[in-house]
């Protein structure tokens, strides 16, 4: 394997890591506020369908993005209603919303386009184009770092860079703002936050809305940047991999980025079994590579790689008075 092949794989890894990263950060806000969300998958799927549809009708990827965020927000709102307002089981609500999204997206796309649950392929401005960063071509001459900058860092859709900016933003919001302090507190001890005169309900709803927006980005990226249009069940378990990454990262933003990059790298490797075979000198079946993120997460959950402790109030609806 030469350096160019490695760069190609890293380039693919970065593109695959982006939807995971958006969804993972989305889950981070929700779970840090004490609301489990296994409905990331469904929100991504809904967003992808809305984004693909509206980008097709309007011819603008930006309109698609807005629609994707809207669709995802709607699902986040239902999750909030069931699990915060009506104090239902958050896990069951997430499962239900995933099924709803899986079915509804196909129903709507089939009704609108009649192509077996797909949107028509998107072209031109309906997709997010790639951006070449400044000096990418000039930097190529620099050994090692130059090609890395030109091939891996440069040449992605805008949303990829936004995803990584969101990591910094999330870190800052979580650890350096009043909202972040309250968010972390409400996930650990909502009664204390309530005693301090802050509304638990409002705080958790705002966290869920951020979750909705970020899942909207994830889905829109899937439909209008990574691929050209929405396809039936196109997220293919990415919402669950993002959830796995969140646990792997122990609910911390920067670690979440590394986890998503790692899992994105595994996905990129699964496309190149020849390279894997060359590196480990044994034929590795592709399904093993597909299963790797899940196996690693089980190991982390089992506490073999440090202990993953979820926010303490996670999964429990808050009851103000007894």
């Amino acid at each position: 394997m030469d350096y160019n092949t490695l760069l190609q794989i890293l380039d693919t890894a970065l593109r695959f890591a982006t939807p995971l990263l958006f969804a993972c950060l989305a889950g981070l806000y929700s779970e840090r506020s004490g609301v489990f969300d296994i409905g990331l998958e469904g929100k991504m799927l809904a967003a992808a369908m809305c984004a693909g549809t509206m980008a097709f009708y309007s011819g603008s990827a930006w309109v698609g993005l807005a629609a994707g965020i809207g669709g995802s927000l709607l699902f986040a709102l239902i999750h909030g209603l069931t699990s915060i307002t009506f104090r239902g089981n958050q896990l069951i609500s997430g499962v239900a919303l995933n099924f709803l999204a899986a079915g509804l997206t196909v129903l709507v796309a089939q009704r609108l386009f009649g192509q077996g649950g797909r949107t028509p392929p998107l072209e031109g401005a309906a997709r997010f184009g790639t951006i070449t960063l400044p000096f990418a071509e000039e930097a190529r001459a620099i050994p090692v770092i130059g090609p890395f900058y030109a091939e891996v860092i440069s040449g992605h859709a805008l949303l990829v860079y936004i995803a990584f900016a969101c990591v910094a933003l999330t870190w800052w919001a979580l650890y350096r703002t009043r909202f972040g302090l309250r968010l972390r507190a409400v996930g650990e001890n909502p009664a204390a936050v309530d005693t301090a005169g802050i509304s638990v309900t409002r705080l958790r709803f705002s966290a869920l809305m951020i979750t909705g927006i970020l899942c909207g980005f994830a889905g829109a990226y899937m439909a209008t940047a990574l691929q050209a249009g929405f396809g039936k069940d196109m997220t293919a378990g990415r919402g669950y991999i993002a959830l796995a990454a969140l646990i792997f990262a122990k609910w911390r933003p920067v670690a979440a980025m590394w986890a998503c990059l790692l899992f994105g790298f595994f996905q990129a490797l699964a496309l190149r079994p020849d390279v894997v075979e060359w590196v480990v000198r044994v034929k590795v079946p592709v399904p093993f590579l597909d299963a790797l993120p899940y196996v690693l997460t089980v190991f982390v959950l089992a506490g073999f790689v440090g202990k993953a402790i979820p926010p303490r109030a996670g999964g429990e609806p808050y009851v103000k008075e007894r």
Partner: protein
Amino acid sequence: MDRLPKWADVTLVPLVSLLLAALCSALVILAIGQDPLEALDVMIQGTVMTASGWGYTLYYTTSFIFTGLAVTMAFHAGLFNIGGEGQAQLGGLGVALALLYIPWPHWSLALLGAACGAALFGALWAAIPAWLQAKRGSHIVITTIMFNYIAASLLIFLLVDVLRPAGQMDPATARFGPDAALPRFHEIPGLQTLFQRYTADGAVKLNAAGNIDYQIVPANVTFFVALLLALGVWALLWRTRLGYDIRAFGKSEAAARYAGIGATKIIMIAMILSGGLAGLMAINNVMGEAGRLVQNSASGAGFIGIAVALMGRNHPIGVVLAAFLFGFLFQGGAELGLWTKIPIEMRIVVQGLVILFTGALDVGVRMLLTRLFSLFRRPKPVAGGAV
């Protein structure tokens, strides 16, 4: 706060939830420009109005009884087993290994052997998350989700690289021997008269060889196994000491520990039983219907088990009834895909709505009903002026 009468809690809450789910489904069908009443008519015609419709509906019902019971079993121990799908797929592997490598003389022995294989593999796949929950404190919901994906990958690998006979293109095992085929409803004496075909003048239709030409349906003897197991689960949970321990543990882990009930033991037993039940589903679909193990053999039945258990209020009787409802939805949904412009995915939407209303909005529906009840209830006379 007023409480609901017990009868209302048991019957009215699930019925109102179901009604709300049905209402939302109707709205969805209207929104995609179709007629909900016509859809319902197609579903009823294709399921309970014909013998072959029953044959398919009961086939699906059988699968859902297994997975519904699996979720129920874990639920009573306070565990949410979301991994029924993976456990059912592993159960399929157990069935395939038992039937491919052991020559069974008769279907009844083959059924016994395959059931052991299915239950063993399903239980094993549930035992690992159970052990991780009991000993390492990893959340069972997340681990069972992960194990669903790991199971899917494992089976793809086994079917493509190991179990696939040489020269076969599609990723599946070889066909099981004819002695391992379970009697289906149209092959069971007595029951089979229901599946006779008739000619236009009302006579029994014969095939070319002069025998009676039966309609072939997938429902098989496993249906009766499922009903027996429902009875068994009821007896275990409500009539044995172990069942009491499991339910006590599910109600309050702390109290159960204080009463000397070992947490590890209960978690392990409940999940092993749960996984075994989910795995047993494979004797219905893999052994009874397909006759070989194919990729994605459980085809979502593991997840439907969640809806079935929630709808059936985690009681075996409720599970059997809810499984029938979902069998109806599944077969009816397929009919919709065939005869109307409503895509077959409609059944996933209905499934989601049922889980949403019966599972997640449970408290909300109860709050609504409580309010309605207190409206129509006579105010109680206040004794002695006390509040």
